[in-house]
């Protein structure tokens, strides 16, 4: 019985140490876990995969550093998938503070793609294949305004170019020329706004990639068809990476998949502590 009493008073620092130690161990000895793909991610993948050549993908990258570990792998894998299919991409961020992270993803994936390009036609060229629209305040205004005219809302892009002079923007006028919008966000709830405003008013298909904190809140939107598909947390990103690897044969680094082993270990140890804690509590309570 004494052991159960000791377990109910276990120091929180031992739990932190066990958790940290296990994650460090899994990072030192990495191993890929096969990820099972669930319908919300599969549907998002299908929607991005089947974007017609005359339509574009809008990628809203609106996460901050606090959600970078979860949302950045989503941004990388969706963008790689779109580029692989030569889908036209318009990137933006609803928040000025997050533009740096959005630009990082765009620059990295574009450079990665162009390293393997053999000719100019084969390369991704700014203005022809992709545009970084940047940011316009406040968030709701561009969401509504782009339904009428994208170049009207974003008159200049992130780099200061007149948007309507860019070749891509001559074809992509408003949501009618956009196949799907993928909104990646952390704690701001911006993904929901796309469904509430753009999907409801203009019928734009919206895919979401969110921090796991918001996962439970967003499933009703998926269930109601307001989100075409969704990725939740690093698990969602790993599922998308799995599809991108197996179906689109994208061979890039799979950051989210690498994190799944650490995540699994962390979950297992937490479940173990919860079970031990509960058993100890009930045993010692009965004794009292």
């Amino acid at each position, binding site marked *: 019985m004494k052991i159960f009493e000791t377990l109910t008073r276990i120091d929180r620092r031992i739990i932190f140490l066990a958790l940290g130690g296990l*994650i460090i161990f899994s990072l030192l000895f990495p191993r890929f876990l096969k990820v099972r793909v669930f*319908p919300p991610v599969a549907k998002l993948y299908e929607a991005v995969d089947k974007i017609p050549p005359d339509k574009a993908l809008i990628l809203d990258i609106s996460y901050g550093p606090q959600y970078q570990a979860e949302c950045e792998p989503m941004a990388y894998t969706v963008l790689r998938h779109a580029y692989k299919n030569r889908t036209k991409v318009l990137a933006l961020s609803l928040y000025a503070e997050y533009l740096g992270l959005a630009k990082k993803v765009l620059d990295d994936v574009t450079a990665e793609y162009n390293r393997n390009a053999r000719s100019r036609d084969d390369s991704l060229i700014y203005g022809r294949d992709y545009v970084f629209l940047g940011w316009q305040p406040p968030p709701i205004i561009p969401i509504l305004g782009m339904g009428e005219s994208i170049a009207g809302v974003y008159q200049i892009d992130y780099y200061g170019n007149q948007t309507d002079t860019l070749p891509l923007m001559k074809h992509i006028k408003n949501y009618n020329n956009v196949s799907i919008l993928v909104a990646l966000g952390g704690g701001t709830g911006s993904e929901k706004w796309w469904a509430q*405003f753009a999907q409801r008013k203009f019928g734009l298909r919206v895919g979401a990639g969110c921090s796991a*904190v918001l996962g439970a809140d967003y499933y009703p939107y998926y269930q*109601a068809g307001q989100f075409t598909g969704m990725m939740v947390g690093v698990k969602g990103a790993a599922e998308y990476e799995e599809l991108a690897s197996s179906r689109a044969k994208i061979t890039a680094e799979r950051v989210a998949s690498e*994190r799944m082993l650490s995540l699994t270990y*962390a*979950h297992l140890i937490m479940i173990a502590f919860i079970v031990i804690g509960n058993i100890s509590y009930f045993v010692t309570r009965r004794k009292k």
Partner: protein
Amino acid sequence: MNFDPWIWIGALLSLAIFSFLYKENPVYYVAEHIYIGVINGYLVTFYWHNILVPILFKRLFSGMYLLIIPAFIGCLYFTRFIPRLSWLVRIPIALFMGYYTGLFIPVTIQADIIKQIQATLLTTQNFKMWNAGALGIVWSVILFVGVICTISYFYFSREHKGALRVTSRIGIVFIMLGFGASFGYTVMSRVTLLIGKLQFLMGDWLGIIK
């Protein structure tokens, strides 16, 4: 090991923040104060260069004088620091609240209430949304029962007796399942942050992992 000074600053500050897990200590407080100072300094300069200068001052000085009105209303926020004039702060707050209330009420009713109710109805289309074949009906019925029972739990105009007691008890089960899912997802999110930070420390800083 990476010798980039910025990586070192990031790594040492991360360790300082982690030291709080052991116990409160001066190193943690130094890192915390640095963080608050840096984020405030960053945001003030960021908003100055990215919002106030290009959207307000440049346009104002190029002849769009009507912008004086929103600029003046925005400045009324600062009257909070002058007790005699602090009531004026209600003007920008009222405008702000009016704008967002008007914008969000119809949207919330349509997208968050009507659309969600539609998704709860027992229709063939909703059965298909589950991607579960014939089981779609079962899941839809569970969803329907869950919604009705959860709503009945929040019906406080009558004492929870008889049928209402049964439905509200079932409602509690669904509420607990919802809380459990939220908690599980929150744990996943926070653990991912820890993994990301440890990857930074072990990879970008120490270079012992790829």
